[in-house]
C-alpha cells in the first residue's frame, strides 16, 4: 500500500523552529509503524532521529504519538492505522531532536518512589508488566500541565512494591506519593490506562495507592 508519513521534525542545530516533513513510500499493511520510520531513516533521510531497540514491544524505547494516540511504534501495524500516519514525540516532555524527548525527569520521578524491593501473590502482578516506555505519563493532562507531577508510570512502579507482601518499604513510598505532586494530581482521566501498550490497569492501580495512603493516615 502507498503510505504517507507526516513526521514531526526538530533539528535545533540547523533550524530554530519545529516543522513537519512528509514521506511517501510503499509499505505492507503488516509492517510495523517502526518499519516505516526505519525505512525513512535508512533510505530517505538519515537525519530522522528516534529511539528504538527490541522492535517487539518489550524494551519501551519507541513510545510515540501516532495519529494523536500514544503507542509503541513497534507494536502497531501500518494496516491498522491507515495510509496517512502522523508521528509526533511524546507530549509534555522537552524535545531534544525530532522524536527524541528528554526522559531525565521521568526517570528521576521513578527513582523517587524507592522502586526496589525493601525486605513474598498477586495483587501487584499487573503492575510488574511496566516497561517504562512513558506512554502513560505523557498521555496524562495532569502531567502536561504540571511537569512536577510524579506521573502514572512512577505510581505504577510504586504500586508493584506497595502490594507485594514481602516488601517493607511502603510507609516511605506512601509518604512520597501522598505529597502535593504525588498521587493526588491524578484526576482519573483514564488516558494512562488507554495509552498503556502492556494493558496495565493504571488508573485502577492509582486508585489502590490513593486508598492505601488514606488507610495509612487514618
Amino acid at each position, binding site marked *: 500500500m502507498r503510505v504517507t508519513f507526516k513526521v514531526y521534525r526538530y*533539528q*535545533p*542545530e*540547523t533550524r530554530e523552529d519545529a516543522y513537519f516533513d512528509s514521506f511517501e513510500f510503499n509499505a505492507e499493511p*503488516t509492517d*510495523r509503524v517502526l518499519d516505516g520510520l526505519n525505512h525513512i*531513516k*535508512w*533510505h530517505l*533521510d*538519515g*537525519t530522522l*532521529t*528516534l*529511539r*528504538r*531497540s*527490541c*522492535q*517487539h*514491544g*518489550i*524494551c*519501551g*524505547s519507541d513510545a510515540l504519538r501516532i495519529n494523536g494516540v500514544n503507542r509503541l511504534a513497534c*507494536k502497531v*501495524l501500518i494496516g491498522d492505522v491507515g495510509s496517512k500516519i502522523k508521528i509526533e514525540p511524546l507530549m509534555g516532555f522537552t524535545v*531534544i*531532536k525530532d522524536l*527524541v524527548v528528554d*526522559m531525565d525527569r521521568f*526517570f528521576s520521578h521513578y*527513582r523517587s518512589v*524507592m*522502586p*526496589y*524491593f525493601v*525486605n*513474598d*501473590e498477586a495483587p*501487584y*502482578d499487573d503492575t*510488574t*508488566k511496566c*516497561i*517504562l516506555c512513558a506512554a502513560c505519563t505523557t498521555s496524562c493532562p495532569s502531567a502536561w500541565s504540571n511537569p512536577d507531577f510524579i506521573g502514572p508510570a512512577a505510581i505504577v512502579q510504586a504500586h508493584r*512494591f506497595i502490594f*507485594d507482601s*514481602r*516488601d517493607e518499604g511502603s510507609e516511605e513510598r506512601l509518604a512520597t506519593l501522598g505529597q502535593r505532586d504525588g498521587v493526588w494530581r491524578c484526576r482519573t482521566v483514564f488516558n494512562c490506562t488507554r495509552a498503556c501498550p502492556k494493558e496495565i490497569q493504571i488508573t485502577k492501580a492509582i486508585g489502590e495507592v490513593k486508598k492505601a495512603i488514606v488507610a495509612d493516615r487514618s
Partner: protein
Amino acid sequence: MTRIHEHTFDAIVVGAGGAGLMAAVYLAKQGNLRTAVLSKLYPTRSHTGTAQGGIGAALGNMGEEDHWEWHMFDTVKGSDYLGDQDAIEVMCRESPEVVYELEHMGLPFSRTEDGRIAQRRFGGHTSNFGEAPVRRACYSADRTGHMILQTLYQQSIKHDVEFFDEFQVVDLLIEDGSCRGAVALNIATGELHVFRSKALVLATGGYGQVWEITSNAVTLTGDGMFLVARRGVPLEDMEFYQFHPTGIRRMGILITEGVRGEGGILRNHDGERFMELYAPNLKDLASRDVVSRAIYKEIRAGRGINGERYVHLDATQLGAEVIENKLPEIADFCRTYLGIDPVTEPIPIQPTAHYAMGGIPTDVDGGVVGMQGESVRGLYAIGECACVSVHGANRLGTNSLVDLVVFGRRAGVAMAEYCRGADLEPAGEDPAGRAREELEDLLSTAGKDGENAAEIRREMKELMMDNVSVFRTDELLSEAKVKLEELRERADRIAIDDPSRAFNLDLTDAWETRGMVELAQITTECALNRTESRGAHSREDYPDRDDENWLKHTLAVSRNGASEIGYKPVSITRFEPKERVY
C-alpha cells in the same frame, strides 16, 4: 566532539543488561569503590528484558528429583562437548543459589500452589543424565528476562550505582597488556568522555544484527566484541552461532521454547510431528541446533507450509488457560503481529539468529584471557559478549540467564578484589584521539556522496543468512568471505546524512555497521576453518564431529584485515565426549 570530558572510577561496567547490572550491584555492595555503568541505551531497554521462558536451576520444586550434576551433564552434552567442564560446573552449582538471591531481591517468580518457585520443561534439560525431560526452568510467566532486568536495575538504584545513560563506548584504552579505561560518546551532546579505571567489564551482549532474520534488538551490534578485536585481543569460537528454532516467520521475533516446554508441537505441511523422526526420545524438546536443522531439512524436502520456508508451532492443545496465564506475551505477539490466536491456530515459525556461543575469552571470574593464555589486566567480560566457555558449540535454553547472573556476580566480586590491590595506570597523552579521529572523519562525510550504511547492512544480513547460517559448506563460506571483504571496503566509504552533534544516531549506526562487518568476517573465517560439524556449526561437506582433530576452541585475532587463528584445549573433568543423540 570538541570538548573532552574526563572521569576517574575504580570500576567501569559497559552495558546495563542482566550481566552488567549484576556485576554493578556486586561492585557497589563491596563498598568504597567508585563504580560507573555506561550504556548506549537506558538500562531498562537492554535485551535481557526480551528473554522469555526461564532460568535453569536444579531446585526440584515440581515433585521431581533434580541435581546440579544433571544440569551440568545436560549443558556439557548440549555444548556437543566443547563447553569447558570446569566452568560449567561452577555455573550449574551456583545457579540455585543465584535464583534464590534474585527471589530475595524481590523478583516475582511464578509459583506452585504451595508457594515454591514454579518450574517448567525446556529443550535438552533432563533427569538422570539424559533419561527424560525434567522441570528445571524457573519462570515469571513468559517475561522472566524482563523481571530479571527490572529487579537488577531496582537493586542498582538501591545501592546507588552511578549511571551514564545513552553513553556509547567507542574505544577501549588497552595498552601493554592492561585495560586503563574507555572512551565514550555522550549521545545526547555528541561530546567524547574519557573514563579512566582500574578495572573494566564488557557486558555489551550479542551481535545478531549481522543476520537478516534475528530475534535480536537493532542495538545488538557486537560493540564490545569488535572493540576488543581491534585492540589485538582474540575472539573465541566465533563459528558457533545459535539459530533458535522458533522465530515468528519473516520478523524473527522469538517464540519461547517454553511453548514446547508446556506441550507445543512442531508440524510440517502434512501436519506431521516431524521431530519424532529427528529426536525420538526428547522430540520437540531436543537441543536447539538439532531442532533448527530438522526444520531446515523439512523445508528443503518441500514439507514447509504450502512449500514455503516455514513450519507450524502448534500450541492449540495447550488450552486457553495455559496460554493466557503462562504464555501471555506470546499470545500478544501472535495477535499483534500475525493477527492469529494461538489458542485456536498454529503459529508460523522459522529459525532465527539468536545467540553467540563465542565471544571474548574469559576465565571463570570474567577475566579476559589473551592468545597465549595471558591475562589482560583489568579487563573483564561477561554475558553474551563473553566466552567462558559454558555453552560450547550450542547453548541450552535458560542457560543464558544463568550465565548472566552467575558470572556477573563472580566478575563483580573479582573486580572489587582486583581494584583494592591495583593502581590506576596512565592512559597516555591523548586517550580520546583515535576515537575522535574516527568519528570526526565519519561526521565529515555528512551530505557527501558515498556508500549508504543501511544498504551495506542489508547486503551483509542477506549474505550471512544465505551463506553462514544453519547449514554451511566450503563453497558458501568462501563466497561469503570474498563478498564480506568487498563490503568491508565499501564500509570505509560510508557517507552519512546527519551533520549534527547532538543525538546523531546516523553517525552511531554507521560506526556500528563497520564493526558488524568485521564480526561477520571473523565468524565466516572461523566457520571456514573448522572442517567438522559440531553443535550449531554444521558443515555439509564435513558432516561428522571430529574429536581427534577438533575437540578444541578456536581463537581468532584480527591482523591487517585477516584473522589469524589459534587454538586452546577444552576442559574435560567429569564427562568424556560421546555420541550426542536426543
